[in-house]
């Protein structure tokens, strides 16, 4: 599972599955349940699919970069640097989740959506970025950097 291209393919697949679950299957509920001032829930659903998609895409890009970086032999000689790099990528997922939530907030500032819904969007983005990145790198990091992700 930690060999190329299996880890790349599985990461993309898992990202796609999570996006389908949160953006398509749960998308209707996430867009229709909040009280909207003017916006059509279908439009909000489209926005959420796009933002969630961007979140998944960023997370997949980071995981794939980690796989590429961690599969290079030279990294065996720079494990402390690799550790710093993984932590940075991990923190970036939180930033992505927060930034994309802010984008949703800005786009819907005049709609009077209750803040708990923004909390839910952040929760979904948290799963689609940080959790996705952690799970994929925890399970599928190349052997050289296998023991770098938290929890190993």
């Amino acid at each position, binding site marked *: 599972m930690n060999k190329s291209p299996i880890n790349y393919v599985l990461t993309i697949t898992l990202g796609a599955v999570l996006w389908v679950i949160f953006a398509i299957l749960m998308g209707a509920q996430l867009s229709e349940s909040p009280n909207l001032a003017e916006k059509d829930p279908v439009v909000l659903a489209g926005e959420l699919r796009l933002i969630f998609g961007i979140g998944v895409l960023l997370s997949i890009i980071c995981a794939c970069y980690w796989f590429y970086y961690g599969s290079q032999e030279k*990294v*065996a000689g720079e494990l402390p640097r690799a550790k710093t790099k993984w932590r940075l990528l991990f923190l970036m997922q939180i930033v992505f989740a927060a930034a994309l939530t802010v984008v949703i907030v800005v786009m819907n500032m005049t709609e009077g959506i209750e803040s708990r819904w923004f909390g839910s969007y952040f929760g979904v983005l948290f799963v689609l970025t940080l959790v996705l990145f952690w799970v994929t790198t925890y399970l599928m990091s190349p052997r*050289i950097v*296998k*023991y770098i992700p938290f929890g190993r």
Partner: protein
Amino acid sequence: MSKNVLIGIGGTGSRVVESVVNLCAAGLGPDKLHIFLIDPDEGNGNLTRTKSLITRYTKMRSLFERTGNNPSFRTEIVIPPGNEPFVWSIFEEKHSTLGKYINYDNLKKNNPELANLANVLFTDAELGTDLERGFRGHPSIGSVVMSDPPMNEYPFKLLWDGIETFGENELRVFVVGSIFGGTGAAGFPTLGSLPLLKYNEAMHAKLGEGKSRILLGGALVLPYFSFNADGEEKEPMFVTNSDFPVATKAALQYYNDKQLGFDQYYFIGDSLSQNVGKFSTGSSEQENKPHYIEIASALASFDFFDQPKEATTDPKYFIASRESPVIDWTSFPISRNSDALLSNARQFRDRLADFTIFAYSFLTFGKNILAKTHKQTSDETWYAENFRKNFKEESAIYNPRHQDNNELYVIADSFLSSFLYWICSLDDGDKVKLVDSSKILAEPIPSNKKLSLRDPEASPAFIGEVIRTRSDAPKHNFNKFRTAEQKDALIQSDAMTAGSKYLNIFYSLSSSFNRKNLVNS
């Protein structure tokens, strides 16, 4: 079931035994080997080095539990037990002379005819020179004093123990010494005389007319080195390089004429005449650099011990020579068995290469990792796979840094340093191309032999160039070493101590690295 006994005589004999021990450590020797030495010069530096090496080998072997696919230290080397002597030093008292040994002063008074005979056979210098430092290139003295060794005492007892249990030719005794020096040249034909070993009736070696329990082999090492003799001409009975050819010619003539008990001879020599350092008549100063001819002689003993029983009767002649002035891994006469020649040559190189990289990587990277804490090193994949899951601080089975493992590391440090000194000393940078010592050593070998090793983490490219090959293929670097596949890096054993496991990991990583690095070469 046969028994193998190796007897090293004199300075060259002890140096060949040193090579034997190092090759056994690399996994090239027989399953079991009994060893002892003969040298009147107990303070001889070569002898001291060999004695210490064997002691450390046996200790390392007893502490280091090895996995089934780790051939290192497979040979059980047996030396006399406890404080029994490992070296037959010939003289019981210090400052002996030939005159004292034959009671020359008494002979002059009581038996002047015999004293006169002694005068014909020996010069005054030969009769009166202190022999504590050996026979100084005069085998005629040695042959007198070595003719009646104490067979019932150690170290000879090591040879005779259990003699009755052996059938014809099952006790394989291999004698090695130089043909051109003093002790070896005297001891070799003396031990080879028919009644002393081969057909010794008192010790039950003889089985009947023309039959013996002993298969006697010997390697006669012909002149193969030169030395610096500055300022030593004052020494009594001084030997120079120019004496070697004359002494050798006379000795070869003797072996041609004399009927000795040897079943098989190996004549080994070299015309490169490499300089092995400063000359000394003996004592601790006589400590010469290792030489590749000693490996060839050690391999001769392995070939002798390895021959099948049915091959021991017919006399055969085997000749090997180098094809060029350059000595590389293919230059060594490995075996008399032509069918196995290629595979044996490959095994010879692979095992020595693996052990060299093992020694180097453990003494540098391995020790660096041990000097860090468990937490600091647990991101390293090979380490984490072996020690992270079951780590227990207080257990010597699961914690490689547990104090109970320190004894193994100390002896490993000492033995592997000696091995690296030996293999690096063979590299003359010119004609002997086995390992490139400049890729291992940060500085040339100092006189105290404390090696300063390159850090492979700081200079990762060098490790791939340590083993010299004919191939120009690009070599791998140290990162390849530490990224070995799990099947090579993971040592699965619940009973083994973490110290042994740690060493096995390094052997396995070294072996795996060499298989990738030396492919097609």
